[in-house]
């Protein structure tokens, strides 16, 4: 109304922005971008210290030592060479599944090691960034000021995921690339591809976790489980049910083999597992991912997003 009564150029611009904002994606995107930018510029303080500490720990305690050891181990184990995958860059095997009693004992290749580290980096940094941005907004109650604007639970979730994506990439890439390049001397392009697979798999799992948690909130009418917590649990679960992790666990905890056997049935739904198969496939291996499996997270994401759109902002109050 103010702008209706004012004939200035500014006023007409103002009028058009409210009209444009009406319901188009660009208007929503502008609000989401504003929230992401706010979070990025406010990353200093405890959030930055947490992410930096995690990065340094990953870098120093896991990155360098594991790749120096891996380089040495894989370098002289020609006799365990597994032909096929990543042959151009020298993929070799460390363990071979020879014991019929240890059903999950399988070959561990350099792709396993590099992807494993990449997953560890992303599965720590991306959920941490998501938790810092979303968790603090909810805990401190500032989210209630955000919802005074035309943003709902959906837009806030998207904004926090976008923030986690940016921060996870900025912190994760150097933490991953530096030790792998120095430690393995493999082509950077290959290493980057492995990182991207882990990065997008983690991001997708975190997103699915967040939107499924919102769906649970929609059904129960109360935020019994926060998107951040559910996303973290889902990431850990996806990592746990990969064949490599089950194999390693089974080596040390044989008395609970039936549990691992049961969990092994779920291995194909792990995006990390499918990611490894995808990489093997790309690097020239014979295995290929089950493409249909990718429909599961995508379907959950779409369903979760749809239900999230129906949530009212007061879920942040009832928590």
């Amino acid at each position, binding site marked *: *109304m*103010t702008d209706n009564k004012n004939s200035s150029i500014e006023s007409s611009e103002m009028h058009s*922005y409210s009209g444009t904002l009406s319901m188009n994606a660009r208007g929503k995107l502008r609000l989401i971008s*504003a929230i992401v930018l706010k979070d990025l510029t406010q990353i200093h303080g405890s959030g930055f210290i947490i992410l930096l500490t995690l990065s340094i720990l990953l870098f120093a305690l896991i990155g360098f030592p594991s790749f120096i050891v891996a380089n040495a181990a894989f370098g002289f184990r020609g006799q365990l060479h597994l032909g096929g995958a990543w042959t151009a860059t020298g993929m070799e095997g460390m363990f071979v599944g020879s014991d019929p009693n240890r059903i999950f004992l399988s070959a561990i290749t350099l792709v396993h090691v590099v992807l494993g580290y990449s997953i560890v980096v992303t599965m720590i940094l991306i959920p941490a960034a998501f938790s810092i941005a979303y968790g603090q907004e909810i805990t401190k109650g500032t989210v*209630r000021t955000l919802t*005074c604007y035309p943003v709902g639970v959906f837009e806030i979730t998207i904004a926090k995921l976008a923030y986690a994506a940016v921060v996870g990439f900025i912190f994760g890439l150097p933490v991953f690339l530096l030790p792998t390049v120095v430690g393995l001397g493999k082509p950077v392009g290959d290493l980057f591809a492995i990182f991207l697979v882990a990065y997008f798999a983690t991001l997708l799992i975190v997103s699915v976790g967040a939107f499924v948690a919102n769906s649970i909130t929609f059904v129960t009418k109360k935020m019994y489980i926060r998107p951040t917590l559910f996303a973290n649990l889902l990431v850990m679960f996806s990592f746990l049910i990969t064949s490599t992790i089950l194999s390693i666990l089974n080596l040390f905890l044989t008395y609970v083999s039936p549990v691992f056997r049961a969990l092994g049935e779920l291995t194909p739904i792990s995006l990390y597992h499918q990611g490894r198969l995808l990489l093997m496939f790309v690097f020239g291996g014979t295995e290929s991912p089950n493409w249909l499996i990718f429909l599961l997270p995508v379907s959950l994401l779409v369903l979760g997003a749809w239900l999230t759109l129906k949530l009212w902002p*007061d879920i942040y109050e009832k928590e």
Partner: protein
Amino acid sequence: MSRLNVAIEAKDLGKDFGLTQAVKSVSFTVNEGEIFGFFGPNGAGKTTTIRLLCGLTKPTRGYAIVCGHNIVTDPTGVRRHLTIILEESIFYEKMNVSAYLKFFAAMTGQPSELKKQKIQEVINICELSDLLNKRIAVLSHGQRQKISLARAFLSDVPIMFLDEPFQGIDIVHRRRIRDYLREYVKKGNAVFFTSHNLIEAEQIVDRFAFIDRGLIIKIGTARELREQYLLPTYSIRVSDPIRAQQVLSDSLPVNECLVKGEEVVVTLKNKEDASKISSILITSGVTIMEMRMVGTMEEVFLRMRPNTEAD
């Protein structure tokens, strides 16, 4: 928003929290160009009503149309047309004031040139120039409230919801902000205002609505409500208060007629006699400088409540 006469229309709006009916059923309209005051005791349902009207919580029953948008079917659309100050503002404590204003200016979605203008405008209105580089965490309660108001004023929207906006604000700034709000509604916008301070509200509110236990008990202008609920008491500034006291006491059935400085304060037995006061005084040669009805909205509200209890 196009030229609608009604900015907000609530119809049988209600909200339950479990078995508790926070808002039982409220119906009212807020017109363009008015400051609508919404008052009531603690727990009466004021804040819940605001939250309903802003599309922040789903109504259990009824609906409201805010700027042409139904709060039930398009709650986000509703919030495109309004700006809100909730009773307890929660801040990004580590941000400085300048960054805070820039962020929320970005949340309004205005073009960048307008954002700059708006930021400068609210800095001037709320006198924030000395605070711009300070972190919000170090600010006093009153300064924080000014920042909340500045945030709300950044939006160029047709409706403002202000829940206790003057808490902690000093007298000088209260006046400036009242003036700003008055200018705002003159342009055809509307303000939905709540406060516990009815005396202050009288200076700004055009129409009052009183809510108690989730029900609206009365809506009206200050004059209408005073006339309905208070004894007809008038304070009249006159040229000769002693003479005025004498003629009014002799000519009209009065409960009380007192001289207070330059004024004579008369409480009539019959409301209908109010129209006779001026003619009696003029005929007696007393000049009337000013005449106003006495009684605060607080008194009005206190007189209303027993009726509700009786109901």
